[in-house]
């Protein structure tokens, strides 16, 4: 009986029989019809009074048939079932369990009572003081001010990570300084010009390198000093002398180098301790 619901769907068209259609449209299924019949016929559902009710229902269906009204299947199923129930109630078949029919009748009565109780419950529910109908809530609810308290979130890892990143900068900064050996040829030339210009003798290049400002890479200073001296020699402002390969280089102002009175640079004596001299380092550089 759960499959069709003609009265909740589109109203059925029965143009021939206006009166009955109006009559029938109030019903929602066979249980509804039975309940309405019980009410109008004042049949007490608390007792097993299914027999008269079944008769009323069958009469109702018969009338609908007379009026050639197409009834939904579940109305007819109920009619057939009630007809069977009626016959069993009137003349119990001793072969089958007569009690069965009474139980089924009680079952039907229960269903009707239950449906009726829910109808009454619905009525009671909707006759309560409904909010917005019978009772009213505050019309102007007052919203409190919203205070936002901030809770700060930070984990120990965040903290250490932050500290690490701060101190890391220090480490990186220091390493960059080590990588900054820039002592340019221009710088070296300025120093060379000053020293050589004021000197009236041959000077070992190593000594000149040593005279370069401290704090720079020695190797870089050597390269720059050598480069600057080659440049100056090419311009003719100084002379360079090396007695043999890998011997120390000597530098002298051009005019003084040409002066026969100028003492010659000392002869080369290979260092016994193997310490690198200027020339050797140059080849490596």
């Amino acid at each position: 009986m759960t499959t069709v619901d003609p009265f909740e769907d589109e109203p059925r068209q029965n143009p021939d029989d206006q009166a009955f259609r109006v009559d029938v449209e109030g019903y929602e299924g066979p249980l509804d019809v039975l309940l309405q019949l019980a009410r109008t016929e004042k049949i007490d559902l608390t007792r097993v009074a299914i027999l008269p009710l079944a008769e009323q229902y069958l009469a109702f269906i018969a009338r609908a048939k007379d009026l050639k009204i197409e009834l939904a299947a579940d109305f007819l199923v109920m009619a057939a079932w009630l007809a069977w129930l009626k016959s069993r109630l009137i003349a119990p078949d001793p072969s089958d369990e007569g009690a069965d029919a009474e139980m089924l009748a009680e079952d039907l009565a229960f269903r009707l009572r239950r449906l009726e109780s829910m109808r009454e419950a619905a009525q009671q529910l909707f006759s309560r003081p409904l909010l917005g109908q019978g009772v009213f809530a505050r019309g102007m609810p007052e919203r409190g001010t919203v205070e936002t308290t901030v809770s700060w979130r930070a984990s120990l890892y965040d903290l250490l990570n932050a500290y690490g990143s701060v101190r890391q900068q220090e480490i990186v900064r220091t390493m960059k300084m080590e990588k900054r050996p820039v002592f340019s040829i221009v710088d070296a030339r300025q120093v060379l010009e000053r020293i050589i210009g004021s000197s009236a003798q041959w000077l070992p290049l190593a000594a000149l390198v040593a005279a370069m400002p401290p704090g720079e890479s020695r190797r870089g200073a050597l390269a720059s000093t050598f480069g600057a001296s080659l440049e100056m020699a090419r311009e003719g402002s100084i002379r360079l002398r090396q007695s043999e390969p890998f011997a120390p280089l000597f530098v002298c102002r051009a005019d003084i180098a040409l002066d026969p009175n100028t003492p010659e640079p000392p002869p080369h004596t290979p260092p016994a301790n193997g310490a690198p001299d200027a020339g050797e380092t140059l080849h490596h550089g």
Partner: protein
Amino acid sequence: MAETIALFSDEPVDGEALRRIEALLFACERPLTLVDLQARLGEDEALEQQLRQLQTVYANRGINLVEVADGWAFRTAPDLAGLMAETREMERKLSQAAMETLAIIAYHQPVTRAEIEEIRGVAVAKGTLDILLETGWVRIRGRRRMPGRPVTFGTTRVFLEHFSLSAIADLPGLDDLKGAGLLEGTPPSGFSVPLPRDDDALDEDEDPVDDDDGHGGSDDGEARPAES
């Protein structure tokens, strides 16, 4: 008629506490539960007693303190409803079928559509349940653990609030129906008496509505927090 302002009996009264409760409940249009109140007022064992005292103070007034939807709220006295014509909301006109279905859901919850249909003896139009879900009075609770895994319906706090019910156990006539065995299954089966419950705990034979079954928005309207 000074008696409209009810006085306390001899029991001790913490006037300041009553003021605070009064202010909180008055400010909110929705019921506040004990938990809501305690969240604002701090734990106080006397809270429930104080609520009763306040209820007494307002007993004969134009505004009453009522227990509704598992909480407390101020509402106008029902006898003054006629005065409120202008404030009255547009009434939702529910069909007889929808009202009946609502009653069945309220008294028989958790209940499946098939069970509703069995009680009504007629199919429940899809639209009827949709309308009830839309009112916010009915929610989908879960699924019955049985073939087809049909969804189960139940009522919401909004339902309790709308019908001025303090709890689902306050449904009118509930005890009588229970006594008459009308909340049971069909009698020959002889099951024990189930009582309607609208709490969120699922029945033994109920499953939660899965996410994957596409019935999203299952619990709409359900259990909105008491404070807005």
